[in-house]
């Protein structure tokens, strides 16, 4: 399968008063053409920082310190800013959790949708307007002319997110990065937006990287998944496989603590403790201090990434032992 994005050993650090915080610490992931891939994890695990790093949108005091992000063979992290600007928003685009932090409050929505496009090519006013209205129609907005002429604050949260998506898909990108696109929205609006993203992806043939903490969205909307914990990717699997046979103890614990809407869970299953500091992470496995299955070596030595069958991998000593026994 054709690879759209190949992220290798990405490292992004944040300078803090207390020391260097390793927000992303050697993350590798791959996205194929047309595929929906989830990057799932809890607050502070580095998933959003990974997304921002791929598009080189990391702001100080954050800094990308290593690795590659190969978009169709071209390393986004090494491109001249000019070339990056051509790709960003056009070939690889992003939708954020809160459109209000991204949209200019003083500019009409329609103008913002085509702004980046106008920087790249000459568009007369009428043509730009028509393009914006068309883009808003693409995201199923019933009155695109009215929305194009509105300011962001005049729109509901769901409507703003649709406008943001219209902007992101305007140039039919290969890859859409959606960073918690529905976390701030009510659940009925979330269903509308996620379904819209799925439909657009099919229509445009784009791949999607969905950054989320919601295993429900992973199960319902993605093909493959990477699980992130404490700055590292700890498991990779096709979605069906991850839910049926999770290999990493963190993934298993996460699935156990999920409270689904379709059945009652009699006993709450928590993961004791909390994620480690990324300024001074544990020397061995980062999940070892909370892991109910930890072995003696887990606290001492960092576990290897163990490849399994059907495109799975787990960063875990237990998985290494199982693989060893099977061999």
């Amino acid at each position: 399968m054709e690879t759209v994005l190949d992220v290798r050993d990405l490292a992004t650090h944040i300078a803090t008063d207390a020391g260097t915080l390793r927000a992303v610490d050697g993350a590798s992931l791959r996205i194929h053409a047309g595929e929906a891939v989830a990057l799932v994890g809890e607050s502070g695990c580095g998933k959003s920082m990974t997304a921002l790093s791929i598009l080189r949108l990391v702001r100080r005091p954050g800094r990308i310190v290593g690795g590659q992000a190969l978009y169709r063979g071209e390393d986004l992290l090494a491109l001249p800013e000019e070339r990056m600007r051509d790709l960003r928003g056009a070939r690889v685009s992003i939708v954020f959790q809160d459109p209000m932090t991204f949209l200019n409050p003083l500019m009409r929505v329609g103008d913002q949708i085509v702004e980046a496009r106008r920087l790249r090519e000459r568009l007369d006013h009428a043509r730009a307007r028509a393009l914006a209205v068309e883009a808003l129609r693409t995201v199923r907005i019933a009155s695109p002319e009215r929305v194009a002429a509105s300011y962001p604050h005049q729109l509901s949260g769901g409507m703003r997110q649709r406008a943001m998506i219209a902007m992101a898909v305007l140039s039919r990108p290969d890859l859409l990065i959606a960073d918690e696109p529905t976390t701030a929205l009510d659940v009925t609006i979330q269903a509308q937006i996620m379904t819209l993203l799925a439909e657009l992806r099919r229509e445009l043939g784009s791949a999607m990287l969905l950054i989320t903490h919601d295993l429900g969205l992973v199960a319902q909307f993605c093909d493959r998944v990477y699980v992130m914990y404490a700055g590292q990717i700890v498991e990779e699997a096709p979605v069906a496989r991850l839910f049926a046979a999770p290999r990493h103890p963190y993934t298993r614990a996460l699935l156990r603590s999920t409270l689904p809407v379709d059945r009652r869970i009699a006993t709450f299953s928590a993961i004791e403790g909390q994620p480690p500091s990324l300024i001074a992470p544990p020397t061995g496995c980062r999940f070892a201090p909370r892991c109910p299955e930890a072995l003696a070596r887990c606290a001492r030595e960092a576990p290897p990434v163990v490849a399994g069958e059907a495109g799975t991998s787990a960063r875990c000593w237990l998985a290494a032992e199982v693989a060893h026994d099977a061999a």
Partner: protein
Amino acid sequence: MTLLEAHDISVEFPVAGARRTLLRAVDRASITIASGEIVAVVGESGCGKTTLARALLGLAPIAGGSIVFAGQPVDPRSAADLRRLRKRVQMVFQDPFDSLNPRKTVFATLAQPLRAIAGVKRADRRRAAARLLDLVGLSPGETFLDRYPHQFSGGQRQRIGIARAIAVEPRLVIADEAVSALDISIRAQILTVLARLRRVLGLSYLFITHDLGVVRSFADRVVVMYLGRIVEVGATEALFATPAHPYTAALIAACPVPDPTAARAPVSLQGDVPSPLDPPKGCRFHTRCAFVQDVCRRVEPAPTAVDENRRVACHFPRHA
């Protein structure tokens, strides 16, 4: 035994910049909570769930209705009544960081209600505060007393918020999105604490949330609100299995199920919630309802008991 009975509660807010216009955030909502019961109030932003909870404590302007707590009528306009009520009803908020004073040690935070409301003597306060922390799983409690909020994680701060709430030995705790901001691995820790406190202290909870997954596993009964109105009330399992109001059904269907083999539900609710300043005539849900009939646009459906545990405000309830 019924602990709280609120009947036909309405809440109105003046609208900024529009004289004589009132926003009716809660419209004739009735709710009962039994002793030891967990009642969840669910609905989307602006449905009035938080306002209803605040109104029960006199923290929102009540325009009508009556409250009876532990057999005693409470006049929401009487300061003395509300003071008495607040000794028995406490709140836990979504963001424990916002609700804890960063300059106060945990002990100072807990000592205040212990002294002012529970009347614990100075000599006994440290021991009492430590015991509260033990109860919420921060143990041994003494070791946490002299720390400040920033020295705790989000989950631990929420435990402190709960300790503060139970300091006055309330009968009812109103938890307003108390676990919504927490990661799922931590959320289960807090729900476990809340479940244990119910068992040990016989607490009741009014649990305000938008998270239906939590509701299904935690609540005994569920109240569903839409645009200020209660549209359905029922026992948790029955309500999830056979939702009677089309809005309840749509809300449940919209929640993504963490199971890739489950079929994705088609989007059943189009558009946004209408403005509460100008709610639709008739049934407030009719503009988004897939089963709308002519009568729904004209006549507001009254809450009606469909069986002994279920009340629904719909002209054409499902499964009835």
